Structure formats: C-alpha cells, structure tokens
C-alpha cells in the first residue's frame, strides 16, 4: 500500500508538471496522453482471430486483411492524437456565490482545424462536443458547489476524445487558472452590532476618507447642521459644501471586524454576512470596516456583493 501511495504521489506530481494551472493551453505532445482503450483491445483480439483463421486455412487474403487492420489500428493512434492536438483551452470568468450554491466557471475550447467528438469530463458530468473548429467554438460552463469560503479554484477538467475509430483514447487534464469567490454563509451568531463603537474607533484615516467623499456633497443650505459641513474643502476652496444626509428612513451603519472580535474568524465573517444580508433586505446602507480596508457607505446589490467578496477574501495571501 505504501508503494502505491508513493507511486500515486509521484504520478500526481508528474501530471502537475505537465499540465499546470494556466489560463491558456495549446495542446501538444507534452499535454496529451494517449492509450488504447478496451475497444481497441477487443479489436486487436478480433484481428488476432482473423490471423489465426487465415493461418489455419492457409488463406493469404485473410492474412493480408489482418495485417491491414493492424496497420489501421496503429495509424488510428496518430489520428486520435491529431484530433486533440492543436486545441486551445482558455480559462474564462468564474462566478461568485455563497457556500453551497452552484458557482459557474466559464471557459472556451477552440481550434484552428476541425476537431470532432470531444468529451469534457468534470467531476460529475460529461459534456459532449460534436465539433470544435474555426466556426464552432465550444463554450463550456461547469458549476461547482463549494464548502469553504474564499478563493476557490476551478475544478480540474479532463478533455478526451476517441475519434475517429474509438480504439484509442487521447486525453489531457486542464486546470484552468480561474477562481470562484465563495462568500461566507449569512449565519447569525447572536453578536450585537455595536454601532457606538464607531465613534470611538473612528480613526484619522476614516475621517479623512469620509470627509473627502465629494460625490456625496451638495452646496450649503441654511438649516444644515454645521457638523455635516465639509470644513476642509471650505478651507481649501472657500466653498461651503455639506455632506448629503442619508435619505429619510435610511439607517446608516458601519459593520466592523472589531464588532465580532469575540467570535472565531469564520463565525465572525458569517455574522457580518448575516448583518449585511439583513441590511440589504431592509434596503439600508452600510459601510464595512475590515481593519486594513474600508468600504465606504453605499447600498444596493453590487455593494452587497462587493462587500461579501471582500469578506470572502479575508486572509487570502495573494489578493486579486
């Protein structure tokens, strides 16, 4: 057992070297693996039978026929290889969604010549492409359900073909260099969104950021509270501008990592996600404070998705 484990590891490493993650692959000798399959074996058995019959009956024509079929078999190895060689696999875009939801990954398969009978195998389905060529580009979407949040790689795919005669299988593995962003589930862990924490922990940076939000400003009108005046801009330009107050009935809040400090990271993220989901459903606006990153106040689906994505990528080393 140890030997097979070691062999497997070695084999996996070898495969990784030959088919690393990439955005674009043009299939050639290095990427294509080719072997006769069981139909090919049964074909060879048939040829052997014809050969034996021809030898027994001393029938030269049967022998010639058997030889011819063997030559065709060997040639079909080349034909099947050629059917796969020259194909270009391109990674496309991946989707974003919660844990447990199917997330689509798009990618393309194209070729300058005509390629027929391609089968794409993902983990649980088989997509059959009759023809890929200059006029027919294959657009494949595979959907994967993830169980962990974060930047999850697209699944490894196997592209294989048995065209033209079905005796030989040529295949390659493709690891598209694309990632899905899996958001943490909105689960309530009973933390309290401590809104007055906001005032105490408002840092200089945040103040500067919120004050420089010029696209939320409008000219001063009498009656505006002086607290909302953008004094720095007045000092610079001499124009009195007032921060637009949030619309009536719209609560503003800032969610922060500090509010969920007492929880574990994952649960904390889930809690934040839950708050944001509630805020989104109630059509409220919010801002998100993630320590070294601050997402300013906004509302709407895109804001929601953006925030969730930042939550999902928490702790991710190589940020996109």
């Amino acid at each position, binding site marked *: 057992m140890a030997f*097979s484990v070691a062999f497997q590891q070695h084999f996996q490493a070898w495969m990784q070297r030959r088919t690393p993650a990439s955005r674009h692959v043009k299939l050639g000798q290095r990427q294509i693996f080719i*072997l*006769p399959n*069981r*139909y090919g*074996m*049964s*074909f060879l058995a*048939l040829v052997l*039978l*014809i050969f*034996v*019959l*021809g*030898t*027994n*009956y*001393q*029938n*030269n*024509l*049967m*022998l*010639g*026929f*058997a*030889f*011819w*079929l*063997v*030559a*065709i078999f*060997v*040639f*079909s190895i080349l*034909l099947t290889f050629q059917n796969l060689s020259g194909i270009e696999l391109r990674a496309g875009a991946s989707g974003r969604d919660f844990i447990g939801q199917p997330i689509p990954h798009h990618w393309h398969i194209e070729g300058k010549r*005509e390629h*027929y*009978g391609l*089968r794409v195998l993902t*983990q*649980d389905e*088989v997509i*059959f*492409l*009759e*023809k890929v060529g200059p006029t*027919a580009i294959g657009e494949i979407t595979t959907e994967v*359900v993830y*169980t962990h949040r974060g930047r999850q790689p697209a699944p490894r795919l196997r592209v294989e*073909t*048995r*065209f*033209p*005669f*079905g005796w030989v299988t040529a295949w390659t593995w493709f690891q598209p260099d694309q990632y899905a962003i899996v958001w943490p589930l909105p689960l309530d862990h009973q933390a309290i969104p401590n809104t007055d924490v906001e005032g105490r922990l408002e840092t200089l940076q945040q103040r500067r950021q919120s004050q420089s939000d010029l696209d939320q400003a409008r000219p001063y009108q009498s009656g505006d509270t002086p607290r909302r005046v953008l004094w720095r801009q007045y000092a610079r330009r001499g124009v009195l501008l007032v921060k637009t107050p949030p619309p009536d009935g719209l609560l503003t809040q800032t969610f922060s990592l500090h509010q969920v400090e007492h929880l574990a990271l994952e649960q904390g993220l889930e809690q934040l996600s839950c708050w944001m989901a509630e805020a989104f459903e109630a059509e409220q606006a919010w801002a998100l404070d993630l320590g070294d990153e601050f997402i300013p106040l906004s509302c709407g689906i895109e804001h929601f998705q953006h925030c969730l994505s930042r939550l999902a990528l928490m702790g991710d080393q190589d940020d996109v």
Partner: protein
Amino acid sequence: MQLTTPQWQRVLMLLQGVQLMLAIPAFLLLPFWVVIVPLISGAWQWGVLQGRLRTWSVWPKLAVLLALPTLLVLAGFHPTSLEFYVALAYIGGALKLLEMRTYRDALLVVLMALFLLACFFLLNQGIAYAVYATIGSTICLVALAALHAPIGLKFVDGWRIAVRASLVTAPFMIALFMLFPRLDPLWRMPLTSDVARTGISSTMAPGDIAQLVQSDELVFRAQFEGEMPNPEDLYWRVMTLDYYNGERWYQSAERGNLPGRQNLQPSEPLVAETGTERWAYELTLAPTGQRWVPTLEHLIAGYGANAVRTADQRLVWRSALNRADRLTAQAASTVVWRNQEQQRSALRLPSTGNQRTRALADELRQASANDEEFAWRVMRLFAADEFSYTLQPGTMTGRDSIDEFLFTHQAGFCAHYAEAFVYMMRAAGVPARVVVGYLGGQRSADGRYLRVRQREAHAWAEVWLNDAWLRFDPTSMVAPNRLEFQLDDRVVDASALPRNEWLGEGGPVWLQRLYWQWDGVQYNWQRWVLNFSEQDQARIWQQWLLSESVKSVVVFTSFAFLSLFGSWYIVLQIAKNKYKWGVRGLEYRARKYCRRRAPDLADFEGLNGWAERLKERDPDLSAALSSFAAAYLPLVYGRDASDPQLYRSARQQLQNLERITRR
C-alpha cells in the same frame, strides 16, 4: 456513452449501410435467403427508434440464437462445411442490430462486419471480392467515425478520413504481407466448402464428360519452361479407371473394388529415355475439391509440398484440394518402364452383357498375330465411315450399352470410344484401362502458358503391351481434328456445342487481347497473392534483406511487443480499479450504498461531511454512516492501519449500512 435520438438515427442509418454492404457478397456466396435477416432486424430497429415498435426482450432473442444452428441445418447446410459457420456468423451479426442500445453495441456491429468481410475470403478469393472487401472495410471505418461524432461530422469528411486511413496503411500491409513469416496451421481444419464442384470426379460415366464439355470453367494453367509440346502431345492424365461395373468406371484398389481408393502402392518412377523430348512446367490449379493432379504424359518427376506419386504414375494431393495450389513437374515423350504391376485388375469385366462385343473381340483377336496387332485392328475399326463423333449420341444404357454403341448407334464421343476399346481389349484378355483427363488447352496470346478448361476433358485408353502401358486414343481415329484443335473449332456435330464466339477464339482481335490480359492479371493474382508461399518469402529475404534469422527476430519482437503491451494494459486496468478492492473498497461500497438513498451527494466530500449533510434529511442513514466512518477512518489514516479487529468492525458497520439502505 449514451446517444440522443437524433444521434442514434444517424448512427443507425450508417449501420444499415454497413449491413447493406455485407448483404451483397452474402447474397452471392451464401444462399440468397440469408440476407432477409438483416433487412428484418434493421427495419425493426428503425421502428424502435421511431417509437413505433418495442425492442425484443431477452428470451425471444436467446431462443432465436439457440435455434439458429438447427434452422440452418434444416435449411440445407452441412454442419461441417465452411458455409454453415459463415452463415451462422452472418445471421448472428444481423441479429445484433436488434440489440442496439448503447455505444458499445454499435461498435460491436461494426467489428462483426469487419470479421464477416474477412470470413467471406474463405469462400471466394477472386480479385473482384478482394477489391470489394477493401471498399467494404472503408465503409465500416466511416461508420465508426460517424459513431463518435454523429451529427457534427459530415459524411464527406468521414469518408475522407476513412479513405486516408485505408490508403496510407496499404504500403505497410504489403510490407507485412511480404515479410511476416507464414506459420503452419495450428490444428487440422476439417471444414470444406459446400459448393458442388463441377469437374472430374472419382468415377466416370460417358455422360459426365458430355456435361463437362459445356463448361468454360478454368481447371488449371500450365507454364512451360522453354517450348510447349505440340497440341497432339498435350495429354493430361488425371485418373485411370480400372473397374467397370457395367455402368460406370471406377478407380480400384488391388483389394476389393472400392470406388475412389487411390493407388498408393509404391512402384518405380518412370525414367526418361536419353535424347527424348522433355518438358518442365509449373501448374497452377484452381480448387477442385478432389485429390487428383493433372500431369502431362509421361510423368518423370513432380515436386509439390502436398503431392505424392501413385502406382499408376500420377500425382495426388494428400487431401482434397480446397484452395488454389501450385506444383512443378516434368514430363518426357518416351520413357523406360520398369517393374510395373497392376495387370490383373485391368482384366476384369462383368460376367454378363455385351455378347456381340465379346464375339467381335474374339474374332479380331483370332485374326491377329499378337496383342499389338489386335489393338491396332480395333483402332482401325473405329476409323470406318460408320463411326462418327458427336456429343449427343442419345442414351445408351443397360447391360448391353456397349453393344448398342458399337452396332446400333455407332456415334458417340471420346468416352464411348475409350470405353468400347477397353472393353474389347479386356474381352480378348489384353490388360487395358480407361484414362480420364484433359487434352490440349488454350495457348495464351504470347505463347507462354496454357489454359485448360473443363471443356478440354477427354477420355482415352491405355493398354499393357510389351511391358509398358501404351496410350491408345480411339478419338484420333474418329475425329483426328479433335487432337489438333480445341473442341469447338472443329466438331463433327456442331449443333451440340454452345459456341463461344467471344472469348479467345472467334471475335475481334482487341477483345481477344483484353481476354488474355485479364487472364494474365488473374494468373498473377493467383500466383503472387493467393499462392504467396514461404519459398517466395525466403527468396525475398535472401535477395533483398540479409538473412533468414531476421525472420525469427521479426516474430520474436512482434510477439514481445504484443505481450508487453498487453501486460501493461492489464496493469493499468488493475491500477484504475484498485479503489474498488481491499480496504479502500469498503469506502467505495459505503458511498455506493449511501447514494441509493441520497443520490445527490458529491464525491469530493468526506464521509463525515456526508454524515453532517444527512443529519436532518435522513438521521438513520447519517448515524449509520457516522459509525462506519468512525470505524473505517482509523483503519486507513490511523496508526493501527492493519488491525484485523478494526477491519472486522468496519465491515460490520458496512453491512449495517447496506441493510439500512436496501430497498
């Protein structure tokens, strides 16, 4: 791999095309009604695809398959003939069309088609069928290509792929054909072909020759080294017939009168007299289904792998000739006879019948000084005006058929004259026998070889005189022209013969030339393809390649390659399926059972993950799965990996799981 309905329709269309392609040679080589089977099964399958018919269940199909051999025997096939087995394979392949549900079935249909194309070679080895078989296998390749991309692949493109594959591999096929060593048959093949062979059989009655004369079928070709003998010397001996039972002549053995026995008693071979004319020739024989070999008189030497010399100076094959074969032999004009036997059997006559002939024989013998003179008297008898040569003399049967011929009809053909002659010889106590064979033949346009057809069949006599068997041909007295020309050039009774004006004899010159060219092509086909033998191969190796030991190297390397390949493939298959066996197999089976109740569980998740998921949906299953995982995971990942106790408990949990999920 499953195909959608439109894909299946396309595939089925091409498979019908393949069956149609097979039907044509089946129609010609097997009894015509066998082609009805694929028509029915193809139409049925088409109906199934349209949704109008249901597929057959297992039992009717099994019943038909088991009943098939008996049906074929009842229909007239002989169970030890090649046609029987080929018809069985053909009908079996046609019935496969009824059983097409998956990709694998369609592939099997095409493989069977290729197998049948090969099997038909056993029944027919002409050039026409060889060309047809190559086209047919290209069609099979097109069907295979379309099976793998039914709708995306246009027919033209598929055809192009198949033709390219066929043509590119042709040189390799020729190279293998010429260089791959021919092995000896692995076991005795008792199967022979059913086709009734026309031609000289092991017995003769006069009517047989008359029938043969109407056939243009080629019997053999003879290529001479140097000069060809004159037409009147071209006596090809096929059989000597010793025993006459009053109706037919038979070859006999020394003991008893069993028809058909060969005379394999050893005797001295003939030796050519010094200074006499000699001829060396090579025979290429079409399959006759018989054991005789036509050899030119007088045979002094014969070389052939399977031929033996008989006591009456002929050659016979060791077993009936069922495929074309070759032979070289030499003949000489005059020979020295030494120690020849067999006179006694050459004297027997039936005790009764033909009194007038016997009387005449006595009379002529009395008038002669010795046996030789007597023989010539009888010959001159036939030269009289009353006797004529005709192929349709009317029937002469019964006990006194020879009397009838000599005294009433006085017209007949070679067999009658030979018969009568031998009868009279024997009646007077002179040993004589009937010889059946061929006389003459068609010379090729370039004079290099001879074509002998059935219509050249002839019968004459041999008489034991002066310690030698001398040829006496009564026909030379009656129709001397017969010896010089072919039968249909000069025939006394022209109305009897079907004239063959087109080929070779009458007709325009260009047509004649075409005829001989086609004959040359067929001869070369037979010589270089069908009869490509080990000697030819050895010559190629010696002339063009280095040595004969290279042959064994070729055999060795090809078998080594094959076995390496095969074992590698087996190892790969084992490795691929290892997860189903041993300890890992427990997990495989556990997952299989869980999927019965919850088919949507994903593969990449662990067992505990599955248990979590199922906690609300299916608590029993979840609990069972958890306990299994608790027992199994330490077995694989823990430190006590080979603890049999753990293994047993894991298996118990697995059985529990199985029981729960059983429906």
